[in-house]
């Protein structure tokens, strides 16, 4: 049975540590596939102008394309170079909730993320994405410091 690990990247340099940890783990497991996930923070309950709404589909495609090119594809390529089976996923939504959804949909066994760099008021009010993921995930979560 293939073991699937989902790696959540946030586009920051700390994501490399999560990738390194995941690739090391994958190399120790006989049949392992990595899913590199990047979640673009987005809420369906945010407020936008009419013009932003009209351009939203175009912007969404651009955001997905940028995330693929700059974050996900380089990460997947580096894993494949090491001989690890890997694929990339880009989604919009709440980071913690969406990472868990991706993991459930892909049949993942574990989520690996880095400690996020959120600070200040947002973190105090809403908690960090990592903390929220740890509390709400339906599979084990490894947080790389």
């Amino acid at each position, binding site marked *: 049975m293939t073991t699937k690990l989902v790696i959540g990247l946030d586009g920051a340099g700390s994501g490399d540590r999560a990738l390194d940890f995941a690739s090391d783990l994958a190399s120790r497991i006989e049949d392992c596939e990595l899913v590199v996930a990047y979640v673009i923070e987005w809420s*369906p*309950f*945010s407020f*936008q*102008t009419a013009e932003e*709404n*009209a*351009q*939203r589909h175009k912007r969404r495609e651009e955001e997905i394309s940028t995330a693929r090119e700059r974050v996900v594809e380089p990460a997947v390529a580096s894993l494949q170079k090491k001989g690890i089976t890997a694929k990339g996923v880009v*989604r919009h939504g709440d980071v913690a909730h969406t990472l868990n959804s991706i993991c459930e949909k892909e049949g993942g066994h574990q989520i690996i993320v880095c400690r996020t760099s959120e600070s200040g008021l947002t973190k105090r009010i809403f908690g960090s994405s990592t903390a929220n993921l740890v509390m709400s995930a339906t599979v084990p979560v490894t947080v790389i410091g």
Partner: protein
Amino acid sequence: MTFIRKSLLTGAAGFAALPAAAQEAASLDARVNAVFADFTGPFVNLIFAPLPGTSFPWIVLWLVVAASIFTIYFAFVQLRYFGHSISLVKGDYSDPDDAGEVSHFQALATALSGTVGLGNIAGVAVAVGIGGPGATFWMILAGLLGMASKFTECTLGVKYRNEYPDGTVSGGPMYYMSKGFKERGLPGGGILAILFSVFCILGALGGGNMFQANQAHAQITQITGDYPGWITGIIFAAVVFAVIVGGIKSIARVTEKVVPFMGIMYVGAAAIILIVNYDMIGWAFGQIFAGAFTGLGVAGGFVGALIQGFKRAAFSNEAGVGSAAIAHSAVRTKEPITEGFVSLLEPLIDTVVICTMTALVIIISQQLIIDAETGNYVLNDAGSAIATVDGNSGVALTSAAFASGISWFPYILALAVVLFAFSTMISWSYYGLKAWTYLFGEGKMSELIFKVIFCIFIVIGAAASLGPVIDFSDAAIFAMAVVNITALYFLMSIVRAELNSYSARLKSGEIKKFAH
């Protein structure tokens, strides 16, 4: 959107003691007024003409009759699908794979930011001040009926929108007029679309722009004291320019976040006043029901209450005007009718909830003077409206009513009015732009020309007292409703086919909720 005549806010009294330079400017204004009034007067008079023997404008009847017909034609869709509308807004039926697209909630919030405004604050005070508490009953009824008009126009707005290869969308009545009529083999769709676009541009520049700038300036001067309107105009124009031309979305984002917050704060303040005076709510509703059918002594009796209620509801929630169809058409959905369901919540929130809360606060604050012996309301000296404690009317009446419960609330209210005006300008700049690009084609230069014209009109609106221009702008917005509703009558069978198909698939389980 707000359709309160400027005189209700600024009054006519301030014109008397002006310095020489101001008088010169005023005489220039007067000349412009005279020329413009001669030119546009017949059109304005036609749109706002009362029905023979009454003071009831035929355009209001046009809107209310249309709303009633749509309500019956779609078998009370606003009641049958109310729960489903809430589910759609919550995102229960949104495909998680479409995350990042415009949600139903966002389309609704954007449309609401264009309609919730001074109409809910000052317009209700006008309705209750003239028509008495009974006007509230008719206002609620008109709001409930208007839900069906919104449902019809917004469904068509999404169904016939243009989706361009780069992923952007353009929608609105002009598109369903041209494409829908063609699809049904009906002639005249193109002409209706052009007429609608012309009125929409004029309405955007006037009611959605000059009038808003004028109101905002009037509100600011109530706190700061009088100063030239062009200063307010230039500041507003610079901010709007930065948003719509400069692309500084952060300002718009701040506004779009602050405006709902102000709306919630307004409703919250009203709720607090109602909770504190909970023992009077029953009495207030008693006044509303009694006034609806007897008038309780207001000018024109219960018919006077009915006219005021219908007028203010129609003017506040824009149901049938067609502007909402432009705002809602950006949503991402495979089922156009779902946006129709969502849009029907708009008159409910705007008119039935917010306007009713304003009315209850005014009634409970007892700003309206009642004859202790008869229980009827006392009319002012002119006999045209109910006498109030401090002689207030319009926004000042709402302000006084809230101040009786929360003394510092008038400052918040003034800020809310300014922000609502700004938000309405941003919304209408988009509606006008869509009509403009429909007529003159999409393209950066074409869009820039309209946006610059729009900003210039902000300065004019804040600086001048161009009453006839504003009358004409209001008339243009209601002319939009004449053209739009005419088209809706021809296209409503398409909406019914969509409704029947969707309803069948919903019942069979083909359309189901997504697990989130």
